[in-house]
């Protein structure tokens, strides 16, 4: 069982609201990732981090932003939510320095923007 947590699990919010999705891991992993996944579809990488104060945009353009002030914490923020942001957001972490190793996923946050 991976020690990676996401809150909230479900969020229903109105258009224009600012939201922050929390992700934390207690495994001491340097690498962390945010993916966006629509129902029944593949995962798309939207942000990643290789350590404190390191953040990069992923393959899928996203209006969200991330920060990495502490190793264990990688929150994602939407300044002004829109219905097009409705999706599932999955956070993951990865140990070690080798390429393409196992990622450990949180349970996800299902976001619905009305």
């Amino acid at each position, binding site marked *: 069982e991976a020690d990676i947590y996401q809150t909230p699990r479900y969020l229903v919010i109105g258009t224009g609201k600012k939201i922050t999705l929390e992700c934390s891991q207690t495994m001491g992993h340097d690498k962390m990732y945010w993916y966006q996944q629509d129902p029944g579809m593949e*995962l798309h990488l939207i942000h990643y981090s290789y350590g404190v104060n390191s953040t990069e945009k992923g*393959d899928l353009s996203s209006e969200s932003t991330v920060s990495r002030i502490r190793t264990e914490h990688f929150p994602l923020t939407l300044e002004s939510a829109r219905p097009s942001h409705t999706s599932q957001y999955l956070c993951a972490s990865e140990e070690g320095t080798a390429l393409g190793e196992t990622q450990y996923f949180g349970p996800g946050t299902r976001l619905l923007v009305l």
Partner: protein
Amino acid sequence: SQQGEEDPQALSIQEGENATMNCSYKTSINNLQWYRQNSGRGLVHLILIRSNEREKHSGRLRVTLDTSKKSSSLLITASRAADTASYFCATDRYGGATNKLIFGTGTLLAVQP
């Protein structure tokens, strides 16, 4: 793109039967992984096979990798209703400067009791 393609998109079998899913990818890789996702949940890592390996086993799971054909297969033997889930393959990018994984489109497996 590097994105993996999986087939079939959906598979329905009876409990006790074997299930085979395939994954194809486009460029050279360091390794290939298979993940499982229950409905509405996060992904769980099942198995990782490196580019210099051809076959790997873990319990009822058997994974093969053919780098010449750029393809992999996941076999689940003696399936159970609890195996019902979506299964994704994921590849890294050989020689790339980053650790990003590229996930396939997934196979939805339904095991009927």
